[in-house]
């Protein structure tokens, strides 16, 4: 399911126009991006939480050539699945 399918499902379930459903979905995920960009943390009960982790610089290798390369420090978002969703995904 991609974003437009999510928008579609929301508009059908809640009787919203395409435009209205788009605004809601965009506001949520734009809000997520902005929050993580600020270095903040997001916690959605039953779904999961997002944090930004700092990774220091390290010496890596180019797997194709074998040459060493210096990998610059970077920030990456990390998702931890919430209890409810973890269980729902794993139902046998």
């Amino acid at each position, binding site marked *: *399911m991609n974003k437009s399918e999510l928008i579609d499902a929301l508009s059908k379930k809640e009787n919203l126009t395409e435009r209205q459903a788009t605004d809601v979905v965009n506001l949520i995920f734009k809000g997520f991006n902005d929050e993580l960009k600020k270095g*903040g943390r997001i916690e959605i*009960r039953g779904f999961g939480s*997002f944090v*930004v982790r700092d990774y220091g610089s390290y010496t890596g290798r180019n797997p194709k050539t074998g040459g060493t390369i210096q990998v610059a420090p970077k920030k*990456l*978002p990390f998702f931890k699945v919430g209890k409810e*969703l*973890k269980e*729902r995904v794993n139902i046998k």
Partner: protein
Amino acid sequence: MGTMTKKDIIQKVHNKLGYSKKDSAILVEQVFEIIKENLAHGGKIKISGFGSFAVKEKQAQRGRNPQTGEEIEIGSRKVLTFKPSQVLRKDLNS
């Protein structure tokens, strides 16, 4: 740095889109419910500009109880993974 919760998102939907607090809460809950429902059925969710969620099957493996050293069987299970989009990765490092 604070933590953004569902409450903050509901408040934002209320402020920016003008729905009542009650309706805003229903809409936000519904968005996550649709996503969860889809993932629970093994689907994949791709939100362009943010990232994608997918369910991966983990094989059974032998492990050890780190406290007792006793060998234990870890059964196969399904786990949820998140892969950030290039846009988000770039945003975080700009």
